[in-house]
């Protein structure tokens, strides 16, 4: 248990890149962190309508979906990031860059889990589904900002060694956000409307997050 806290502390204080453990072990421990803490927040997130009867399934589904969102997005964006790093001549630093990315993801999951008690209090105070969605949106926004902060800190060492890492940092953010928005859209519902049946994924068409946003903007401008 003590080792776990030390590990969490190392991630939050950006000490991962400096330690001497093998890269594979560091990466595996970070993925374990993402899964564990992502599941904690996901379970809390999905407990909006309570955990009795069928609603327990919503908590379980959400507990599975939050780590899936974080790990799946990284996996999808990772191959292009690898090729672009290689093309830019930064292949030698790629293991460190990947470690930095995963540390930021792990940090994001830890921050999310730390915000879980606030979510519980909010659920205990309000029964409005729309408010619950917005509150969780704010929690995710805070965690994402913290994750980006961590990523910037981890990347600072790399950028000091080679300024071209700065460009790769922004490219990763672009790729990650582009995929993550659609991934979150596909994996919804995370909170789960208490008046709707519990389901892992929406049965209706998956659709496209960007199209919805473009149409909303278009309608707001035209009408």
């Amino acid at each position, binding site marked *: 248990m003590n080792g776990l806290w030390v590990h969490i502390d190392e991630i939050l204080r950006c000490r991962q890149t400096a330690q001497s453990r093998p890269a594979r072990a560091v990466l595996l421990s970070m993925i374990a962190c993402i899964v564990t803490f992502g599941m904690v927040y996901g379970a809390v997130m999905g407990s909006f309508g309570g955990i009795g009867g069928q609603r327990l399934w919503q908590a379980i589904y959400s507990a599975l979906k939050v780590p899936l969102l974080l790990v799946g997005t990284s996996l999808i964006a990772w191959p292009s990031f690898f090729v672009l790093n290689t*093309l830019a001549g930064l292949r030698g630093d790629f293991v460190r860059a990947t470690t930095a990315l995963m540390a930021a993801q792990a940090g994001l999951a830890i921050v999310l889990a730390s915000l879980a008690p606030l979510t519980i209090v909010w659920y205990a105070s309000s029964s409005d589904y729309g408010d619950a969605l917005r509150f969780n949106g704010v929690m995710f926004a805070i965690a994402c900002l913290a994750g980006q902060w961590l990523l910037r800190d981890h990347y600072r060492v790399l950028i000091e060694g080679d300024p071209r890492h700065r460009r790769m940092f922004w490219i990763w953010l672009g790729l990650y956000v582009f995929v993550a928005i659609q991934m979150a859209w596909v994996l919804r519902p995370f909170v789960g409307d208490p008046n709707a049946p519990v389901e892992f994924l929406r049965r209706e068409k998956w*659709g496209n997050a960007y199209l919805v946003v*473009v*149409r909303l903007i278009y309608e707001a401008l035209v009408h």
Partner: protein
Amino acid sequence: MKPWWRDLDRVLRGEATSLDANGEGRLGLPLDRLLLAILLMTMAYGVCMGFYAGFREGGPVVAQWLAVTAKVPCLFFLTLVVTFPSLYVFNALVGSRLTLAAVFELVVGSVAVNVAVLASLGPIVAFFSVSTTSYPFILLLNVLVFLLSGMLGFGFMLRTLGRMIAPRPECIAQQQCDSRHDSLAETECPPEGSEEPSTPVKARLVEEPGSIGGLRGCLLEWRVRTVFACWMMVSTLVCAQMAWVLRPFLGKPSEPFQWFCARESNFFAAVWEAFRTLLM
């Protein structure tokens, strides 16, 4: 590691096209293995692109999936066949010292970079293809991905071209000496026949690692560069039109499967129509 993968990796890292590797005016790339790599990478992207047909509402259209897997390699190889002869001819016309083999190596190397980036973006395209039903969105996403990978391929080509047509170190050193002979101390110039360039020349040849960075201080032959720049524009247009000729790649959900469509309209009109439909 497979030999074709290792060679592609060396091209991506910039090792296969470094100054050391191309001292003879040739890159010395293993063309057979790179062509195999291009074939496999384009097929991989074709499979990713085919996810749109494979995960369509109402069941997968396997024939469309197979068709797109075959058509993406055809798109690249046919564009290469159509545009390469004119590139070599104009390159020779302006007096470039690049031989036919050198130009072919350069083109194959840049296509290899292009398709490697394309294939690396494949998982993103596959993910959106599975999760999106909008045909215009997927069409525009694929156009964007092709455009981005093409730009990186051209960036690689321009940089490698700069290395290939840059004056050799001993020529620069001799030129410097010739121009400074009357005004500067002769002792600063390397002795005749020496292969070691002077210190300023060395400084000008310092390059950044990788294959799309900048090569500082290289003197590019303006005419050759212009020919290649024009060729890049022409090959982009040819590639776009070739894609139009070979369509359908994605296959409209409202239409039954067909290997090729009738001749009508053009690529750019179709992209504009997709963009317009997306907003409507």
